[in-house]
């Protein structure tokens, strides 16, 4: 047998680094596969995100619409707004959400964060063995982290899009009901889009934050620790 050239390369040799890879396409494929296999549970996780994003989008866009009405200078617009329950100090040029609304949004986001962190923690811990196995096969810590972050990003994206749509449409509908067509006519489009974007971003961030810490811990484990941890 020929002498095996095991580790002939000296430590620090750049050649070795290039030899362990996980192409992005392959990571994406593995992440999608994992998501598909646990489809039902992922739907539940995504629903939590959808609710958080929808609620946030609803509140933000509702006040955007109200601001639009206010700035339209229609006769009687101030009365319409205060009848609809918006706080309007004298001389205000934009309609903020009320303190109560803000509290409800913050609380709902907190509840969602806890839910998401919990869901992602479970999804990482139940896969310790898989993580350990991958590391035995030569996966770097960063591969493991990347796979989980990709999954979370895809969940976050789905949650953000669905939640944004749901919250945005809901706010528009509520606006039409309260103010009639004026709500649509005086809609500040740029602001509404910005609000949608913000809500979607928050949803995405929640998903990533939830997965980051457990995935980091799992990725850094010695392979045997990870494989044993589940038992």
């Amino acid at each position, binding site marked *: *047998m*020929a*002498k*095996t050239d*095991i*580790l002939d*390369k000296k*430590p*620090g040799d750049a050649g*070795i*680094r*290039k*030899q*362990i*890879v*996980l*192409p992005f396409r*392959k990571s994406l494929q*593995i992440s999608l*596969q*994992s998501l598909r*296999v646990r489809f039902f549970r992922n739907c539940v996780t995504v629903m939590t995100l959808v609710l958080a994003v929808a609620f946030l989008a609803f509140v933000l866009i509702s006040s955007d619409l109200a601001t639009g009405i206010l700035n339209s200078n229609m006769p009687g617009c101030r009365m319409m707004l205060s009848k609809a329950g918006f706080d309007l100090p004298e001389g205000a040029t934009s309609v903020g959400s009320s303190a109560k609304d803000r509290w409800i949004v913050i609380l709902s986001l907190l509840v969602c964060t806890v839910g998401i962190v919990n869901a992602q923690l479970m999804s990482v811990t139940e896969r310790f*063995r*898989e993580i*350990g*196995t*991958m*590391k*035995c*096969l*030569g*996966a*770097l*810590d960063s*591969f493991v982290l990347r796979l989980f972050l990709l999954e979370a990003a895809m969940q976050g994206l789905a949650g953000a899009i669905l939640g944004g749509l749901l919250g945005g449409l809901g706010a528009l509908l509520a606006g039409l009901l309260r103010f009639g067509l004026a709500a649509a006519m005086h809609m500040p489009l740029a602001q509404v889009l910005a609000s949608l974007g913000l809500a979607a971003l928050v949803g995405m961030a929640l998903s990533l934050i939830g997965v980051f810490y457990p995935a980091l811990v799992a990725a850094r484990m*010695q*392979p*045997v*620790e990870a*494989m044993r941890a589940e038992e």
Partner: protein
Amino acid sequence: MASSHTIVRVSGVTKTFRMGRHEVQALRGVDLEIKAGEYISIMGPSGSGKSTLFNMIGGLDKPTEGKVFIDEVDIAQLDAYELAWLRNRKIGYIFQTFNLIQVMTALENVTLPMTFGGMSQDDAVEKGIELLKLVGLEGRHNHKPQELSGGQQQRVAVARSLANSPAIILADEPTGNLDLSTGAEIIELLRVLSAERGVTIITATHDYKMLNVSDRVIWIVDGRIDRIENRADLDIQVGEIKREEARA
């Protein structure tokens, strides 16, 4: 094997597990040399430290004291990349519980180490199919682990361990979860690999069927090497082993 350089050297390795206030000494000073191409069985009762030693040799866990050299390189000196490279290219692992990735098909399990090793998708698929054929799993490429029997899963694991043509195959109780005849098939598979490809095979086991194919048997008792026997000695002592088997 003609050249027979030392491929694995274990020197003064101890391993202590701390569990709260308790300390468990799983290994109490192991010295060992394994030559390239050897078929080694590490035998001993359960709890004697076989898996712990297996993990040390495979670079899957760190010894408390002592050193492990693979091809005379101290693996404690390797950084994360080099360690990953060692696990990916130079060592193939086989576990008692198969440890296939459940969400992947047989073929994807076998090709994953090749992907990590930088092989192109087409080449990996081609080699993966070839390896599955070698272990007798033609036509099962697209089966998920749950759709395969224990023996078939272990065959996939054997194929996966060969993915990057490693110099060493480490097998921790590869037959532990298999029935007698399936276990014998896996042992035969390992024997053929050792004979035809010159792969160094190190198994931890308490399966006496393994004795017939081993070049050397290392008996571990209570975290220490009790004795090392060559195949020649083994033939003489078969009677004694049979007696021990009867006692166990």
